[in-house]
């Protein structure tokens, strides 16, 4: 079962892991993106994630389906958090499982790279000196043919 969600609740790591796995799977991989205490040399005290939620849910489901093809299974769960996060909190969790490990690594990596490319989510950093700033992002790259409609 492919599971994807945009949520403001803290990510339950064990819960995400529990959504994948199957008797025929020999490899399980969990990726967590977590809030770091610095960025580009500036000390960070926390971050806020904002999403275009209605669209982000669709994009997340779409890229998880693409990853499932690489995975050769439908065992994939992806959760992206929004709202205010502290250092060490997970902003994203990606769990996959598959019969063999190569596909698991490839699919997991695919999901996080595509999230960085096209998930409509923005990040606001709070610095130790009290200032805040939007993190410089990248121009979104729609990947699928229907992603850029003429």
């Amino acid at each position, binding site marked *: 079962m492919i599971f994807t969600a945009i949520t403001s609740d803290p990510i339950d790591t064990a819960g995400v892991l529990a959504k994948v796995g199957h008797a025929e799977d020999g490899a399980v991989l969990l990726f967590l*993106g977590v809030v770091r205490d610095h960025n580009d040399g500036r000390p960070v005290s926390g971050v806020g*994630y*904002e*999403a*275009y939620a*209605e*669209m*982000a849910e*669709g994009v997340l489901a779409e890229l998880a389906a693409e990853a499932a093809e690489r995975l050769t299974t439908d065992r994939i769960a992806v959760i*992206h958090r929004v709202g205010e996060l502290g250092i060490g909190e997970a*902003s*994203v969790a990606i769990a996959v499982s598959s019969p063999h490990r190569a596909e698991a690594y490839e699919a997991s990596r695919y999901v*996080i790279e595509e*999230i*960085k*490319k*096209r*998930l*409509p*989510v*923005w*990040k*606001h950093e709070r610095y130790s000196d009290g200032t805040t700033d*939007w*993190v*410089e*992002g*990248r*121009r*979104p790259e*729609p990947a699928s043919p*229907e*992603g*850029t*409609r*003429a």
Partner: protein
Amino acid sequence: MRIRTLFFASYKELVGTGELWLDLPAGSTVSDAVREIRGKGRGFDILPDEPAVAVNRTYAAAAHPLAEGDELAFIPPVAGG
């Protein structure tokens, strides 16, 4: 026709609102809408010439034709993950 435009994150701060309804001539495209919005001044003119946009929650090109009731979102450079 009327379309709903949305602004997020830094764009929302720039233009001072998250949402704006726009009246456009029938047959208008995404570029027409962007030109119309940028012409409003007051922060709107700082939006890029060719911003990334989504129409009805799917990324769309500048030439994409708009229809009555469409949701046109201006998508700042993304920073998820």
